[in-house]
């Protein structure tokens, strides 16, 4: 297995006349949580969508664990990458367990394995068993986001893509989920790509930080190297929130 989970190699991407990335290269280390930090418009969500093939680069190559996207089945690729978004993105017509177990069922998991895995995930994220057969609209925001993380981890994928999943939560709930997630990562050492505009969250959850501005990597390194010696005023400004 490659020592990098995701590699962007000379990637360019524009939406219409608006270039987002230009000859962009970045290697994201495997088996760590990496935070992509930047303001909106910095290109961080585009990078995430390139990683699971939701969008294709105009130029360049994206490699997942060393294999170029395009040379492999996209559905299989995505099933190896758990996905969670801001606002949870749960399907309103499916119950909590059906939301979580949908892909496993479609991947022909035996019923018993699905149930067992959901039990484990409920335990990991402190979800009440009574919620299992409820519909998402009757859950609190924090519960919905926990369910969303369960869904992302259902197939026990080697990689997670998280698109600001915690940003719409109230501070108390966010802190609780942060703690649960950090504990989880400590035991499972998965490759996680976390997109966030909140460097405080990045510092808390990630081991590696990439700071983006206008489609360019401003600074990257382990958490300490970025927080202790910000490279320029922009990074310092983002860090201002920490002190």
């Amino acid at each position, binding site marked *: 297995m490659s020592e990098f989970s995701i590699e962007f190699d000379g990637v360019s991407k524009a939406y219409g006349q608006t270039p987002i990335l230009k000859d962009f290269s970045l290697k994201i280390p495997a088996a760590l949580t990496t935070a992509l930090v930047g303001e909106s418009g910095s290109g961080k969500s585009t990078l995430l969508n390139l990683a699971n093939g939701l969008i294709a680069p105009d130029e360049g190559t994206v490699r997942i664990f060393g294999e170029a996207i395009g040379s492999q089945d996209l559905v299989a690729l995505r099933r190896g990458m758990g996905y969670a*978004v801001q606002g949870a993105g749960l*399907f309103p*017509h499916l119950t909590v367990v059906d939301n979580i177990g949908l892909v496993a069922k*479609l991947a022909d998991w035996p019923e018993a394995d699905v149930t067992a895995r959901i039990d484990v995930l409920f335990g990991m994220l402190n979800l009440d068993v009574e919620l299992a057969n409820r*519909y998402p609209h009757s859950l609190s925001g924090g519960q919905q986001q926990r369910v969303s993380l369960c869904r992302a981890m259902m197939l026990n994928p080697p990689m997670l893509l998280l698109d600001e999943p915690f940003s719409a939560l109230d501070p108390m709930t966010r802190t609780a989920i942060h703690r649960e997630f950090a504990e989880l990562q400590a035991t499972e050492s998965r490759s996680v790509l976390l997109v966030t505009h909140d460097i405080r969250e990045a510092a808390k959850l990630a081991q590696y930080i990439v700071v983006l501005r206008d489609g360019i990597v401003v600074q990257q390194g382990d958490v300490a190297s970025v927080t202790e010696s910000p490279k320029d005023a922009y990074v310092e400004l983002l860090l201002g929130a920490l002190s």
Partner: protein
Amino acid sequence: MNVIGRLSFMGRVGLIALLLCASLTLQAKPITVGSKNFNESYLLAEILSQLLEADGFEVERKFGLGGTLVCYEALLSGEIDVYVEYTGTLEQVILKGSDLHPTVDQLNLRLDDRLQMLPSLGFNNTYAIALKRRLAEAESLKNISDLAGRDDLAIAFSLEFLNREDGWPGLAETYGLKQSPTGIDHGLAYRAIDDGKIDLTDAYSTDGDLKRYGLIALLDDRQYFPDYFAAPLLRSDLPSEVIASIGRLTGRLDDDGMRELNGEVVVSGKSFAEVASQFLIDEGMVTGEVVTGPGFFTGMLDNTLTHLKLTGIALLLGCIIGLPFGVLAFRIPALARGLVYGAGLLQTVPSIALLALMIPLFGIGEFPAIVALFLYSILPILRNTITGLTSIDPVLKRVSVAIGLTSMEQLRWVLIPMALPTILAGVKTAAVISIGTATLAAFIGAGGLGEPIVTGLALNDTRLILQGAIPAAGLAIVVELLFEFLERLIVKPHMLKGELSG
């Protein structure tokens, strides 16, 4: 919620329905008697039918067809075998000739080889301009030429009379009339004249309504109106025994006799079946008891079932085409505009015109009616399917791709279930439209609840109109309720209230 399973189930039902339709048309056919949609034509067709039945032939009745050309086309295509036509109508409308007094022999020389007109039944039902006896006396109106310069009189003519060469245009020219009459349904004209809303209208000289409303006909003092002798028009390939049986009616009815029979129906309110039966027995052509017509509720169940069959099959076909094309248009947005535009265009064709367009393509009867209703049902189903799918929260669409669902799995597990309330609403709209439109299908011989409505309109018989209109309205309400129930059954309540925020 097995949507795909339900679709393919609907597909199976539709296929069976199609096969049923096909097998119905393949059966050995009885003698099919047609009629136009006015009183006398119904009655003559019923007399023909009963005579044929008495002579041992099996008869199918396709009465109330919407006009001369519908009957003629139906005859040519073999949808019907015989109906009673008038010499003048055959000459002018079908043969496009201008002979005012054509004989049956002359007509047969020019007629399509596949058809044949038998000698006249005896009476001449020509056009007449009718008005109330009291008005005629008060205003000293006796001849049609007395109408010249009388702009104060309200004149309304049936649309057919208003537009055909031997109707109003020629009449106005012959008599130098400058009035601009309005168009009115023939069945409604008498009521309008009775209510004093109009003064004059066109009538048939043997019309029983003349008696009913105390009307008289102005004298055609310049002999403008052509002959309209009634005579059976039939397919030449009918067995000679059938033709001989029909021929027994030759010369049996003069003007007075026909007006009398018409009056039995419109004034005395007897059924066609009863009047026809009485006539045949009085003439000694048939022996036995006088038949009475069906009661108020007898026909209703049959008509309702036919109506349900027409709309049900059309709706199923609409779903079978509308749903997949809706999904296709959602996946290929470039297609959506063209499809919705095309279906919308179909919707703008007036239903009666669409039904008429079906005749040269598919003849008359249930099949063309189903095709027309099917075409109407496509748009609401197609449009709601597209709307339902496109209006799903883009985040949820993105998530369904990103978690690794295939295109079919996205549709099956996320997109269609989420669009279901909107799709169902579209199907419901199509169903209700279909039930309403299907009442017009009687004009092309499809039967259903339109049959009593069309007959009732032709006869100015409110009871008959209600016999079709009430169950049709009831059906629409029941279907509406049924869909609401269905919606509650298969759509989670929170999916209906717009709480889609996952």
